[in-house]
């Protein structure tokens, strides 16, 4: 493994160890925020596979999240053990994405974006029309863990943290693999990539499935964490949009950009917007505009430019 690969793994290990120590220094409220950050880090990192590497603007993140949440909730309501339900949710999301990919990955650009956006709405309708199976509009309850509040806060923090580390580890492997390289070629010029023998269809589907599997597990963990889910909650379109903004903020197509973007955006939310509740959504829109105008390659690109110097040719 070359030095850049080693650096990534070491960075991940250091961050993991530091974060694992968080419960020793943080209140339960702080742990909740940290859990949310880990959850969004997973979603941002996952979106990066299809949006950052392959260049396909997917809005399906919310669909995969809700799909995972409901799969896990339904399984647990049929007496499946919690961890098994989480794993099954991830697997189900993976297969769902493979199936969906066959339907929409031949579309490009805006058409693909719109098609992916519809998926969450479709799933929401399906949930609403099968109330006996999914609880419909009334939602689904999930079994409580019979441990103290503090222990629960710590448990779910570690669960999300573990998922975030796993997801980032997968990103390190994928970004530096033949798949990652092929995806970047597809992003730059899909026709040329096909002509040169890159299996565009297979690689795109792989990226799409990768963008679903961890998000599905995140949805499952979330469902167990909050003990109650309903369609507007887990199919919320913001669950698709915020991860995209985080990746754009942190650095599209980089490994540590998405989690960095998650930390920045959620810190911003937590510190600033508490004071500006009414313009919450407008502030998000404003950030998107500023990003597109001034920081199109994200913060990591800015940092890299300062370190390496402008005008360097690779």
């Amino acid at each position, binding site marked *: 493994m070359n030095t850049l690969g080693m650096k990534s793994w070491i960075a991940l290990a250091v961050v993991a160890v530091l974060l694992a120590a968080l419960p020793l220094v943080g209140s339960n409220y702080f742990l909740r925020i940290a859990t949310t950050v880990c959850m969004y880090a997973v979603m941002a990192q996952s979106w990066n596979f299809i949006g950052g590497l392959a260049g396909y603007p997917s809005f399906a993140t919310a669909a995969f999240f809700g799909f995972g949440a409901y799969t896990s909730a339904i399984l647990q309501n049929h007496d499946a053990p919690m961890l098994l339900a989480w794993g099954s949710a991830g697997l189900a999301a993976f297969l769902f994405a493979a199936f969906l990919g066959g339907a929409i990955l031949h579309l490009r650009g805006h058409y693909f974006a719109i098609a992916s956006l519809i998926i969450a709405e479709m799933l929401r309708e399906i949930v609403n029309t099968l109330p006996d199976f999914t609880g419909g509009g009334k939602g689904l309850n999930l079994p409580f863990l019979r441990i103290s509040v503090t222990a629960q806060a710590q448990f779910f923090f570690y669960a999300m943290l573990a998922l975030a580390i796993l997801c980032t580890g997968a990103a390190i492997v994928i970004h530096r693999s033949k798949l990652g390289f092929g995806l970047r070629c597809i992003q730059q010029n899909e026709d040329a990539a096909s*002509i040169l023998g890159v299996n565009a269809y297979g690689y795109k589907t792989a990226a799409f499935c990768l963008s679903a599997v961890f998000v599905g597990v995140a949805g499952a963990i979330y469902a167990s964490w909050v003990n109650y889910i309903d369609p507007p909650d887990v199919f919320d379109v913001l669950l698709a949009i915020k991860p995209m903004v985080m990746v754009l903020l942190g650095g599209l197509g980089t490994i540590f950009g998405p989690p960095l973007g998650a930390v920045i955006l959620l810190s911003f939310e937590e510190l600033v917007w508490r004071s500006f509740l009414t313009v919450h959504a407008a502030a998000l829109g404003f950030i998107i505009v500023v990003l597109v105008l001034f920081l199109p390659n994200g913060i990591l690109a800015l940092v890299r430019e300062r370190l390496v110097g402008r005008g360097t040719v690779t």
Partner: protein
Amino acid sequence: MSVGAPKLAIERLQAGYGDVQVLWDITIEVGTGELVCLIGSNGAGKTTLMRCISGLLAITAGQIVVDGRSMAQATPADFLRAGIVHVPEGRRLFSAMSVRDNLLMGAYLRDDKERIAEDLDRVYAMFPILAERRRQDAGTLSGGEQQMCALGRGLMARPSLVLIDELSLGLAPRVMELLSERLREINRSGVAVLLVEQDVMNALELATRAYVIDQGRVTKAGLSASLASDPAIREAYMGIA
């Protein structure tokens, strides 16, 4: 000239996009080591035919036979392994990758590292300007340099037949001369070439045989010399009454 089965034989090919049929009854042959050109105006179906031959577009009727083997249901990777390389219209380089990486992408399916390095040196020798600019982003090259890079990328796959779509588009005559000379070199080394061109004079000068394609059908075929002196061709494509 060709010995045994031709490198590429297309028989009564039909293709299109969805409900729109673009090609009717195309029959074309390229022998091993031949330089054949396909001339026709815009929208005649030349690029569509190229896409069929490289496996990007599925044909609806007829067949494509390479070295005597049918290429039914073949993917672009299958065509590449059969030795057919498509240098697409508009270059289609990876603009954010360096020239060197673009060239290496041509060898994407190969794993013989030493021979790939040899081939890379050969491409640099053929196009010194690419060697000079090897670390630059391909998007920063001029039109002629990009065409050289696209051609070089094609050569990196060690093809036995190169399909070139619109070599001369947007290029200055001097650059075109250089590229034509290199193309002759490539052909002399035993690589067959199927050149698709709007620049009819250039194409007929380079190729030994030619096909004329008009509105999705092959309307004329023969030696370039005889087509060049054909009054109908001269009037339709070269503006000489």
